[in-house]
């Protein structure tokens, strides 16, 4: 078998010179087919990947079919409430068994030859069964194949395609507390609001991970968003041109960019803008007081007044900003990736706050928001211009590098990206698991 042509150390890919404060990423990592193939094995088949939120599978017999890390899956609850995650492929001849994005089902029937699987994945019926040998009818491998591992943390369901490796809580490291900080915004938990945003970009997937918590680009890429806020409110707080907030390395490639009352937008829980109607302001204050009563002054107010862009390696973003978005993405090829994004909300949120939340989300976020399309444009401009990568070889991610160990590297620094790339290099350089 042909060996992977990428040197295991990947030293050609990244310059990480802490002494001089220089961090460079070779643009070939965004365009190279061999890098892409290696990412599939070393990253997407080894890391914990966000698959769904528990609220999407609240009812017994509910199911979702969804592509996670490039692989089609069925996630379902059986009639007794047990959670399952299967590869969405018939063990007989491979057809995708489940073709609806979500619904209720007590069993799954493959459309090709009519094999029927129970909600626990067992093959319970095969047409014309008499011709099968006992070796086949008793063969467990002819059941729906469960994914090697899945775990739930604070309502977030993750899958892992490797049988070994750290547990989900260990993998999440210090990012776990930030997911808890999302989950505890309602005493009964959070819910994915209906209305998925399923889009794509003609760019490398890693560019979106870089972009999703990049404080440095806001003032230029999103100047028209700030103008909208100014036109609506009469004034705009724009700190993005100066250092504010902080970035934290959360371990294992995860990072957060956060600030308290530093951003120019309203937060549905709970930071009203001047232009919000009085009944909304009152409802927000009531929600804040409720949160503070439950979580305490410090944590409750921190959730209400601060913004967080949370990056969970490799491909999950949970941004708690003018809306609360859960965004995951996966490459289809080096130059094209797919995005699935949702709005998350407190389960018991008052209807007028829910409407405000959804409206507020769209002033910036999503494929028709006032900001996301411009982000997409930037990623695609990068990808198109990487055609020059043999001549213009390096991306620079050195901002704030000499002060990255200080207590609070600013949001505009690029520590969050360096954190991603260091982990990326580590995993990409690790010896490949030998296939059994």
């Amino acid at each position, binding site marked *: 078998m042909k060996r992977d042509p990428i040197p295991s150390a990947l030293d050609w890919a990244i310059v990480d010179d802490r002494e001089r404060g220089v961090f460079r990423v070779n643009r070939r990592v965004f365009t190279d087919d061999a890098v892409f193939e290696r990412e599939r094995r070393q990253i997407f088949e080894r890391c914990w990947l966000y698959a769904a939120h528990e609220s999407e599978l609240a009812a017994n017999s509910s199911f979702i079919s969804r592509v996670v890390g490039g692989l089609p899956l069925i996630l379902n609850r059986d009639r007794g409430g047990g959670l399952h995650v299967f590869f969405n492929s018939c063990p007989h001849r491979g057809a995708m068994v489940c073709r609806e*994005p979500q619904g209720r089902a007590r069993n799954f029937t493959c459309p090709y030859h009519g094999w029927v699987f129970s909600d626990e994945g067992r093959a319970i019926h095969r047409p014309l069964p008499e011709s099968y040998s006992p070796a086949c009818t008793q063969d467990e491998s002819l059941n729906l194949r469960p994914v090697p591992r899945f775990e739930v943390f604070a309502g977030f369901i993750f899958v892992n395609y490797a049988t070994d490796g750290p547990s989900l809580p260990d993998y999440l490291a210090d990012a776990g507390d930030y997911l808890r900080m999302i989950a505890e915004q309602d005493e009964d938990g959070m819910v994915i609001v209906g*209305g998925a945003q*399923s*889009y794509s970009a003609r760019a490398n997937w890693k560019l979106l991970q870089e972009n999703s918590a990049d404080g440095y680009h806001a003032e230029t890429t999103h100047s028209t968003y700030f*103008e*909208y806020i100014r036109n609506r409110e009469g004034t705009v707080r724009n700190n993005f041109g100066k250092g504010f907030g902080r970035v934290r390395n959360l371990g294992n490639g995860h990072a957060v960019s956060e600030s308290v009352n530093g951003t120019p937008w309203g937060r549905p829980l709970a930071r009203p803008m001047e232009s919000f109607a009085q009944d909304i302001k009152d409802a927000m204050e009531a929600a804040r007081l409720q949160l503070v009563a439950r979580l305490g002054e410090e944590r409750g107010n921190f959730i209400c007044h601060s913004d967080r862009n949370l990056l969970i390696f490799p491909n999950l973003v949970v941004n708690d900003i003018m809306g609360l978005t859960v965004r995951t993405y996966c490459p289809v090829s080096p130059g094209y990736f*797919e995005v699935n994004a949702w709005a998350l909300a407190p389960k018991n949120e008052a209807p007028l706050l829910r409407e405000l939340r959804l409206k507020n989300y769209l002033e910036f976020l999503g494929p028709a928001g006032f900001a996301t399309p411009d982000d997409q*444009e930037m990623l695609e401009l990068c990808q198109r211009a990487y055609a020059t990568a043999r001549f213009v070889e390096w991306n620079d991610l050195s901002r704030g590098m000499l002060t990255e160990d200080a207590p609070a590297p600013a949001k505009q620094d690029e520590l969050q990206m360096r954190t991603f790339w260091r982990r990326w290099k580590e995993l990409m350089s690790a010896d490949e698991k030998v296939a059994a």
Partner: protein
Amino acid sequence: MSAGTAARLRPEAEIASGSTHVASRAEVEDFLYHEAALLDAWKVAEWAALFTDDGEYMIPPTDDPHADPKKTLFLVYDDRHRLAERGKRLMNKAAHAEFPHSRTVHQYANVRVSEGEGGETLARCAFSVVRSKGPITETYPGHMLFRLVRIDGALRIRLKRAELALEVLRPHGKVSIIL
């Protein structure tokens, strides 16, 4: 819509006297073609001026085209202020996804007109918007719902709701134009 229904909505006497607010299909079509031409010409301020003071522009999510924007995450849910701001933003060079401006063709077909509540005219039609920018040309198909009212004799838009007939926004990736 049957000819009989049209006659019921638009008795000749009322057309003559102007006492009805419900528009004929021909009038609605003329209005929609005008609206489409404004968008193709990037006359977005004039486009926004077609809306009533309480006018709304919205695009439901691709996975739930009949959803309620108060309960479901849409792609666009603009009140009158924001839809005007949407247009204004697109005329700024810093609206990067639309700089330089893409070329578009907004088309309406299968127009059906009926009477809505309070003298509104409901217009439902199929739409197809073709957008071309640089090397990429893409089509946004769907069904449009307009709630139209007559103010000082002229039709105005109280609601423009563009229900995309796309399962996902791929490979489009975004809706950076006004549909």
